[in-house]
């Protein structure tokens, strides 16, 4: 089923509360990032370094995945491979079933959203509870995250206060953020305590040492990966990184680009389940490696650059479109510029082609990407692929064919512009959709071409004199 991007965008634009919420949030995150990178030379060097690290890892992707697997297994981590979301869900479900698990607590993981894990588990009688505050809020509201770092960014505190009052027993209305967080803490603590299974994503998977790295501020990630007896981590295959020494610069880029922090509160490096003599930690750790279109992305030399993404969210924070329509309007798991590049590749241009048009190619995203992904170039490339499809719009093909004739043949161009200038007083006043919001542009009395011809004639005459 096709995604109706423009329709969704229009609805979002009309929601003034949403517009205000996003404006505030985006301004906040942009300022935070700016403060975290006071030295533009350092930023430039670091971005290039990050680019190199990710590019090098990608150039060795199959070997690194094998090395990661071997080292994880050596460390006692069980490794599974899934080509599709269904396969990934099945693997995770079977691990949970093996342990007769009924309650899973989840750390924030966009990959788990990608595979719609919660719905899959719930349909099979397993409660899958989000423990990141933002994800918890979004789950309570029966919504999906609208941002990849701050899932409830589309809500203001009044809306969250009402949500808590409506959905949580014995909770009175309060706009105090401390009290709201306190409620979340209290409820989720009990769930960490009881849970059979902990599920998490992975920010970086180090091939050299078989280590899973997690970035977080709240502590729920550590709870999910340490308290329950079984920990299941899921990641996209592109997250594998060659060496441990690659991590510090990538971590610095991630936290400073995402929220303007020099480092997150917790950086959690997991290399094995509970070892002999250790007193806590999961007895079993599983790693699920998900493909879901990534190996396909890998085939195109240009689009392969998509896989450098470290999921920081800076692109969407700086996108003037995302800032106004918010994440839900995209109708996809990944919104904003990275979404416009990733989703058509995962789900196909037939379903997600329209969202590539939701971009003015202003370049703000590419400018802030910590690993120098040329996002505007990739969006344009997808438009190119879209235009080559048999299903492309007949109207647009025709329009560009006409354009080519007029602008490609100087004589035709001159006729066209002559007519436009001489008939300027009857030039259309209403050219929808342009004139829905603006006055129509009026051609000048003479073109620059004509004026330059006149100028040249005048100069020649003056020389003769």
């Amino acid at each position, binding site marked *: 089923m096709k995604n109706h991007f423009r329709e969704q965008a229009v609805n979002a634009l009309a929601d003034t509360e949403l517009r205000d919420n996003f404006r505030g949030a985006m301004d906040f995150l942009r300022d935070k990032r700016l403060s975290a990178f006071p030295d533009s030379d350092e930023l430039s*060097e670091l971005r290039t370094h990050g680019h190199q690290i990710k590019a090098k890892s990608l*150039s060795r992707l199959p070997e690194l995945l094998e090395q990661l697997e071997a080292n994880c297994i050596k460390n006692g981590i069980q490794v599974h491979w899934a080509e599709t979301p269904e396969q990934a869900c099945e693997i995770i479900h079977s691990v949970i079933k093996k342990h007769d698990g009924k309650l899973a607590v989840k750390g924030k993981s966009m990959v788990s959203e990608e595979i719609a894990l919660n719905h899959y588990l719930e349909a099979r009688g397993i409660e899958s509870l989000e423990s990141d505050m933002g994800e918890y809020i979004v789950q309570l509201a029966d919504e999906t995250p609208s941002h990849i770092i701050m899932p409830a960014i589309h809500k203001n505190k009044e809306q969250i206060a009402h949500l808590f009052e409506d959905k949580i027993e014995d909770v009175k209305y309060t706009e105090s953020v401390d009290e709201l967080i306190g409620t979340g803490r209290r409820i989720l603590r009990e769930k960490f305590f009881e849970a059979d299974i902990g599920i998490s994503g992975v920010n970086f998977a180090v091939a050299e040492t078989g280590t899973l790295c997690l970035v977080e501020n*709240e502590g729920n990630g550590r709870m999910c990966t340490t308290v329950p007896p079984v920990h299941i981590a899921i990641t996209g295959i592109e997250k594998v990184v060659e060496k441990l020494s690659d*991590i510090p610069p990538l971590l610095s880029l991630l936290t400073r680009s995402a929220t303007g922090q020099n480092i997150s509160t917790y950086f959690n490096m997991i290399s094995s389940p509970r070892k002999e003599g*250790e007193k806590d930690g999961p007895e079993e750790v599983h790693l699920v490696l998900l493909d879901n279109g990534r190996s396909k992305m890998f085939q195109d030399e240009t689009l392969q650059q998509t896989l450098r993404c470290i999921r920081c969210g800076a692109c969407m924070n700086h996108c003037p479109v995302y800032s106004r329509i918010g994440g839900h309007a995209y109708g996809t798991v990944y919104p904003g510029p990275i979404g416009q590049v990733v989703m058509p590749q995962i789900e196909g241009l037939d379903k997600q082609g329209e969202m590539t048009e939701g971009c003015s190619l202003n370049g703000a995203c590419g400018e802030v990407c910590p690993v120098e992904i040329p996002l505007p170039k990739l969006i344009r490339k997808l438009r190119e692929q879209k235009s080559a499809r048999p299903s492309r719009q007949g109207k647009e093909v025709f329009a560009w064919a006409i354009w080519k004739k007029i602008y490609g043949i100087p004589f035709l161009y001159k006729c066209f512009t002559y007519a436009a200038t001489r008939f300027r007083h009857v030039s259309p006043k209403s050219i929808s959709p342009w004139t829905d919001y603006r006055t129509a542009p009026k051609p000048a009395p003479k073109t620059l071409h004509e004026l330059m011809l006149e100028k040249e004639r005048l100069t020649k005459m003056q020389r003769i004199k």
Partner: protein
Amino acid sequence: MSTARNNILQRLRAANSSPITKKTSNWQPPRLEKKERLIQFKKSLLAAHTKIIETTEESWAQELIKIATSKHLTQWLYSPLTESGIAFSKEITNQACDIQLTPYDQTVEAFKDQLFHQIEASFTEVQAGIAETGTLVVLPNKSEPRLMSLVPPVHVALFRESTLLSNFSELIELEDWAKKGLPSNALLISGPSKTADIQQTLAYGAHGPKTLIVLIIRS
């Protein structure tokens, strides 16, 4: 070997990977001179809402007792196997304070209820510090398990200035993890737990400790 694994690896190998970028970078992790390190370390810790108490080898245990009594924290989790854990226990006896020490000397399953519902604070050592980002390097082991620095609402960490490093890269080099492998869990802790998920407003104590106190033993 699974079909999925083979299919994925096969597809990856069939592609012509894009060339590694020709751009070069001169990025180096920021190095801080020894005398600058403590200043930066403290600045970053304080900015993250961590409490700092500068102390000495002789007086840190007394400072710890003071924290307990001033904050009315009587239920403490500690390690009976570390030097500092033993010293803490001794000091409590010496001062005859009303502090109940629970040793983390059995598996978590044996006392999970107590850990989650009764323990008010924990006291741990710290292996090293990272000045650049105001970070404590906590490497859980058989003596000081992982949950000590996570579950109790107050975490007090004992840090020695002599272990302060410049940056994360230096830590990795020093520990030689690439060759030796990492411990089962290695943690970089840079403040108390926090979140800004509600309208970008900072709140502390989301799921981890609400209060982090670092006792810095000066060199």
